[in-house]
């Protein structure tokens, strides 16, 4: 198993947003997270990536297996596309960036500074980064924002390959990705609004 | 020809040396960058006209 969540609650700004979430993700499986704005998708993905501790419950997965892609892409505008990618490849101990460039058709842009890309081109570079991490579990926050249909198809291909090689993916999105995968609606797990953290609880029934 | 600079020899010589070195540096950097850029542009133009003639065939 790649990832297991056991009765997990996650909090943002000290206030729980999701609670009682349990799920398991096996290699080769992708799960799409859906839910209205503000339900806590980003918070959940950050918790799984190890960027914030769970509020309650347990995340069963080593942070070293997760590659996280956030709303922003972590690109340096003054470095070229190839340099950006090569940096992340070096950090994650990968050598070859060419497959990643090829998969998102970035080779013609390789020598262009990342600051001179359009919104969608930046996003493609951000997604290419995932391919040089060599990590099995991808936690993606709205990966296809700003992408055109060709690029969405490229992403779907890359994702299928990743799953085919025994990887797994957890994807938060509002739009159709063109891949077949299970969908989890987070709406039902919304935390009861009147529970604070342990400290705030002490104030309950004060008035 | 010998020039007698008297007790200020170091002063005068170092002033000349410093200025000439600075000027030489400026000229060297100018030429170095000029050459580099010129070569780069020639190379790019070559690939471009090659691509164009390839396309014509």
């Amino acid at each position, binding site marked *: 198993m790649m990832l297991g969540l056991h009765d997990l609650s996650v909090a943002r700004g000290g206030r729980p947003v999701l609670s009682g979430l349990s799920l398991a993700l096996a290699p080769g499986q992708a799960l799409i997270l859906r839910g209205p704005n503000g339900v806590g998708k980003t918070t959940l993905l950050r918790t799984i990536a190890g960027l914030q501790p769970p509020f309650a419950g347990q995340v069963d997965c080593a942070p070293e297996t997760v590659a996280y892609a956030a709303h922003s892409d972590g690109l340096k505008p003054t470095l070229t596309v190839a340099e950006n990618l090569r940096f992340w490849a070096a950090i994650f101990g990968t050598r070859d960036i060419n497959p990643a460039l090829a998969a998102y058709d970035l080779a013609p842009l390789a020598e262009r500074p990342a600051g001179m890309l359009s919104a969608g081109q930046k996003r493609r570079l951000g997604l290419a980064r995932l391919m040089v991490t060599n990590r099995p579990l991808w936690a993606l926050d709205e990966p296809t924002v700003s992408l055109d249909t060709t690029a969405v198809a490229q992403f779907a291909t890359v994702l299928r390959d990743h799953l085919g090689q025994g990887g797994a993916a957890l994807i938060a999105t509002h739009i159709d990705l063109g891949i077949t995968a299970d969908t989890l609606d987070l709406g039902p797990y919304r935390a009861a609004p009147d529970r604070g953290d342990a400290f705030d609880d002490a104030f309950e029934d004060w008035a | 020809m010998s020039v007698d600079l008297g007790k200020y020899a170091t*002063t005068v010589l170092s*002033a*000349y040396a410093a200025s000439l070195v600075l000027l030489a540096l400026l000229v060297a950097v100018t030429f170095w960058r000029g050459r580099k850029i010129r070569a780069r542009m020639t190379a790019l133009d070559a690939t471009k006209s090659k691509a164009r003639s390839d396309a014509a065939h």
Partner: protein
Amino acid sequence: MSLWQYANPRKFLATSERVLPALWAGAVLCLLVGLTWGFAFTPDDYRQGSTVKIIYLHVPSALMAINAWLMMLVASLVWLVRRHHVSALAARAAAPVGATMTVIALATGAIWGQPMWGTWWAWDPRLTSFLILFLFYLGYIALWSSIDQPDTAADLTSVLCLVGSVFAILSRYAVNFWNQGLHQGASLSLDKEENVADVFYHPLLICIAGFVLLFLALVLYRTGTEIRARRIRALLLRQGAEV
């Protein structure tokens, strides 16, 4: 035939290619003659001893330091008003040359000051305003090199050059007010010729001519480089577009 035809980069490059050899030759010749004459064949000053020979480097570089800024100012104005790219690139090309001239003036002055005033540096108004001029050059160059859109960079640096010139003049007055100095008055003006004896005057004029020619040659050559760099950028961008 108007001057503006040289706003066309190809025309500019073709012409500068023809003019440059003559400029280089003239510059080298004048500098060789002037500096040799000044260094080897002029007498020592009765007060300053042989240090007076520094004047052949100090004064021309000081003049060019100021004139380079003036040239940048004019070029910036031309760019802002008529939007001729070569003009903006010429301003860019002149800045490092002017900055170097400023450094030479400062360095020779400092070296000269050591025996004359007993100190490397004094907060004399003339010296101080040169230091400020150097800072302006630095800021101008730094601004150019941190903007990657060429036209934006040209616009912003031109605005900076304009505003900077006003403040440079203000600084000059402020500094004068702040500290009356040690430095020699200007004595190169023709009607005050007696201040600098003829023996010093002629080689000095030749050196000044040499520095002017050198400046012109450097700026023309560097402008050509900038133009080519600009074209490389355009070619690279086009390659990117052929996706």
